[in-house]
């Protein structure tokens, strides 16, 4: 056990000495890898921050039918019955909202209350809220077809598609997730080739040392170990630098997004991924670095 620890400590010492001998080359490599590793982190930050927003907004698509202001409540109820009787499988729920209830609901908002109090009559129409089944395919098309049909009905003033954009947002997020996955794969390949090449150069420059070590009885594990550590250490440090770069980049981005969100009277911030995601990312980067180094040193020390 003690010998095992001694050999690992020796490998680490060898790595630090090699890196200290070429500090500029090492730092350049570190910065390049850090910049590359920042890309998926930034993408993940955006996705992770936008995802709750999409969930917060009611995801069930809703169509709202606004009745003519002069239409009676009975006419509104008739429209509701007509929709229910149609038995359309795309429709999950229909509710009739009386204009008085809508006004009361609106009055609960302090900002609206003052404006509504100066009005003599209730300006709101009766409305029928139709919830659609999210399990349906082509929901956007179905909603459009229903809205088109209902607009032709007597006493219907307007049909509004409320939540279709959320569906679109979710579709966009799905696309972004795939995009992020592809970016991560590309970044992994870049890291792999960068570490492979660095270790190749290092192995060639350490040719004499490797030959002597083999001459005095070094096992292949002994020869490979410092390179494995070098790959893992380079990726670990690059990853930590990438965390810092991501945090630094999110600062000005959040300032700009915050100003934009204020104009919508809301708050929105891009957040760093959680600690568990960052730790997993760090572990994967180290593993990738070590595996790439192992591959490189095995291929480039056959002499």
């Amino acid at each position, binding site marked *: 056990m003690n010998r095992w620890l001694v050999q690992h400590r020796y490998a680490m010492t060898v790595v630090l000495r090699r890196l200290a001998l070429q500090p500029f080359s090492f730092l350049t490599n570190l910065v390049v890898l850090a910049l590359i590793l920042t890309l998926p982190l930034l993408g993940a930050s955006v996705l992770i921050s936008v995802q709750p927003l999409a969930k917060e907004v009611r995801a069930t698509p809703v169509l709202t039918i606004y009745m003519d202001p002069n239409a009676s409540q009975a006419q509104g109820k008739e429209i509701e019955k007509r929709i229910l009787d149609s038995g359309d499988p795309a429709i999950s729920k229909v509710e009739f909202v009386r204009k008085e209830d809508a006004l009361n609901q609106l009055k609960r908002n302090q900002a609206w209350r003052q404006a509504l109090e100066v009005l003599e009559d209730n300006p709101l129409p009766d409305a029928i809220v139709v919830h659609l089944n999210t399990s349906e395919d082509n929901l956007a098309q179905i909603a459009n077809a229903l809205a088109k049909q209902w607009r032709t009905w007597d006493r219907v003033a307007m049909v509004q598609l409320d939540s279709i954009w959320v569906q679109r947002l979710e579709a966009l997020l799905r696309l972004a997730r795939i995009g992020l996955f592809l970016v991560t794969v590309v970044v992994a390949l870049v890291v792999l080739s960068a570490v492979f090449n660095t270790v190749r150069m290092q192995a060639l420059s350490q040719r004499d040392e490797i030959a002597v070590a083999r*001459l*005095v*009885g070094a096992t292949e594990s002994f020869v490979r170990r410092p390179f494995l550590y070098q790959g893992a250490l380079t990726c670990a440090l690059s990853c930590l630098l990438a965390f810092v770069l991501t945090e630094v980049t999110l600062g000005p981005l959040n300032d700009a997004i915050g100003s934009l969100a204020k104009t919508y009277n809301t708050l929105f911030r891009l957040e760093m991924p959680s600690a568990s995601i960052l730790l997993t990312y760090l572990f994967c980067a180290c593993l990738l670095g070590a595996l790439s180094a192992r591959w490189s040193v095995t291929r480039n020390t056959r002499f």
Partner: protein
Amino acid sequence: MIQFTHVYKSYAADHPVLQDINFSVAAGEFVFVTGPSGAGKSTLLKLVAGLEAPTRGRIDVNGQRLDQLTPRAKPYLRRAVGVILQDTHLLYDRNAIENVMLPLAVTGHSYAQSLSRARAALQKVGLAGKEKVNPMALSGGEQQRLAIARAIVNRPALLIADEPTANLDRETARKVMTVFRDFNQVGVTTLVATHDEELMAEFAHRVLIIEPGRMQDFPVRRSA
């Protein structure tokens, strides 16, 4: 300690280096290997150290049959064999004592243990006080002795050296050879390839002569 049985070695089909070599070296012997340039002395030593594989035949070293050794087992054999090649293969990016400590790092000795054993090895070869000197700053003889210190620091059972006194003046060559004799006297089997007849006459217990081409005979000459 060493047993060659019908050993052949060639690097190209039409260029045999060693043919039908048969000899044995007992534990504790001091043996010189000599012969003209290109006769295959270096190849023979590399075969003993397991640095090359024979084309045909059987080699036993330190009780192990080399052709049956797995790649994983070979490094452990090399730890029992101290090798000094014609080119000393010293590492010039580290000082003398760090060069000697490398085999001890390979075998997993602690830094403190390595330091004390490397110091002792340097003292044995007459390089005490040169621990921090870069090998480049050492003379040819000192470099050769440093290579010997590195080869013996792991206390090998067998020491092999390929032309260790080439390019050295007579006095330095004698000093280097005395180091080998000292190790042999404490039981280390020693196999040295050389051209130097004077040294052989002075130090040899036994001489093996290799002739180029096919060897019908493998003469052994014993000196007093």
